[in-house]
């Protein structure tokens, strides 16, 4: 009698097991999508044109990258210094101009963010000769910016170890 129940029960258990695994996979998918690896931006700024076609250096727009902890998004004045005259008929530039005229800053969505307990300085990394693309990838090929590094501690420490940079706790955790 017990034997006749065994098979359907096992079948049920196996199906439930795979069901749970599928749910976990779906959960990983959702968490990956929510992680905002490539979030939409209020203005579709193409790095492809500005970096690859015009050869603008990164600090042409990210003014503080070699002077401060934060690379900084450019002030609208920087964009408008060229776009008062260039491509003014394009929809995205019209959006930009409206922001500028209404004195309303563009609320860019962060692609790279570190937790509060991590101290990171762009200035130090630029001065040490780390190329921007080592952490940010080839942004000149990205129509929409994507996060390419994991930003985990292991990711930071691997590079510090390979370059012989300090690995004391206090280097990054002040």
């Amino acid at each position, binding site marked *: 009698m017990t034997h006749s129940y065994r098979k359907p029960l096992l079948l049920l258990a196996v199906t439930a097991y795979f069901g749970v*695994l599928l749910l976990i*996979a779906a959960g990983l998918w959702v968490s990956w999508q929510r992680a905002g690896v490539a979030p939409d931006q209020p203005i579709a700024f193409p790095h492809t044109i500005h970096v690859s076609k015009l*050869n603008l250096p990164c600090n042409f727009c990210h003014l503080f990258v070699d002077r401060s902890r934060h690379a900084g998004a450019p002030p609208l004045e*920087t964009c408008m210094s060229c776009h008062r005259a260039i491509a003014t008929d394009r929809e995205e530039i019209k959006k930009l101009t409206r922001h500028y005229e209404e004195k309303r800053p563009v609320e860019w969505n962060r692609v790279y963010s570190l937790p509060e307990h991590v101290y990171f300085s762009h200035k130090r990394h630029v001065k040490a000769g780390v190329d921007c693309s080592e952490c940010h*990838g080839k942004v000149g090929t990205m129509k929409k910016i994507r996060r390419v590094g994991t930003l985990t501690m292991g990711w930071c420490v*691997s*590079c510090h170890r390979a370059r012989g940079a300090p690995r004391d706790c206090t280097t990054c955790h002040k």
Partner: protein
Amino acid sequence: MASWGNLQPLSTQFYSLLQHGLFLVLFFHLPFLGFLIGGSAVSLLLNFLGKEKRDPSYLRFSQELMRTVLMSKSALFLFGLVPLLLVWFAYARVLFDPSPLPWQFWGVLLAALIFGFAFLLLYRSARDRTLDLSPISAATGAAGLLALILAFFLFSAGYGILFNPSKLPLLQKQIQFFLSWNGVVKFLLFLAFFFGMTGAAILLLCGRSAEGGEGTEAGYRRLVHRFGANLTFLATLVLPVFLLLDLVTLPVVALSAEVFVSSAVVLLLSLAVCLTLFLFDGKGEGGPGARVVFLFVLIFLAMLLHDDAAVGNAYQDRVAFLAMQEAVMAETGKEAHREAPAATAQTKADAGKVVFETICAGCHRFDIRVVGPPLSEVVPKYGGDAEKLKAFIRAPVKVNPGYPSMPRLGLPEEEIDAVARYLIEKVKAGGSS
């Protein structure tokens, strides 16, 4: 190794051909290696069990399995060693890097493979001769198996690098960076697949040696079937766990919807394998062997498509960069063709005008401020010195804080020369008029 320095992919098409080709080679190479690892491990286990239980059926099964696994030496060469050379070649190019893994890595991998193959051949011939195997022969088999597992571990670690381009610069500084959690997970994932596949192959191929006419055939077949089914079932339960761990450990750049979908397909196919084992757990010709083997082929295909998509994602920036370079080269080729007759002074002046109108006029006019200052104001500061003006165009520096910095334009020298002369001439003419 310097000779590998110029081994860049020739074009984006060639790159994608190489990338997919790599996975095509792996589609034949890995199952072969997997059956060798799985089959030898099971044969050694059966040998141990047969001696413990004093049951000759186990020993006979161990012998039959080894005969099935190592059918010919030429297959070892063809499916075991040749693909490795192709993988090596494809690696160097797919990674856009001539020597991400030093020759010592490939040397140890190849040596371990050859050592493993040789020792397993010795084990097979000893196994073939007698059911009562000496401990030394069993140890030979175990040594061969361990060598193959070591080779496969190295292969998996190197395979893990394929998904993580940001590791390449680190690898060149310190070799231990070839180890990664993703590489370890891939090793375990493939190992689980190998054992599942071996179980499926046992169900399909073994237990048919009724021709021997040894009697107790039904009992032997039952043993083989039970062993194959249990092995397949257990491996199929474990495999999806490593698949999920693979999703967790893959670098964020390698993930995409395709990667998740192909993982879900592997999960569903694994469920199908388990259900097939339950529903066709029978007897004789209607057994699950062929169906399970077919499902395992599909599982492996989905696993490789998963990896192929992940590598494609990880390298999309580099391939896009390659495509841009191609576009620039095509453009330059056209321009060179167009400017070929630019020999006389007149055409040079025309070339300067063309450069001005296509490049400079976006930001500069002669009479008014656009983005940059009016040229009739700034060009006279060079006092007709074309060399000085050319130096500025080549590498602009910020002069007037009231204007944004002029970007470096990266123009070819002849265009810089032509536009500088054009500007000086034009401003001179404009000033006199």
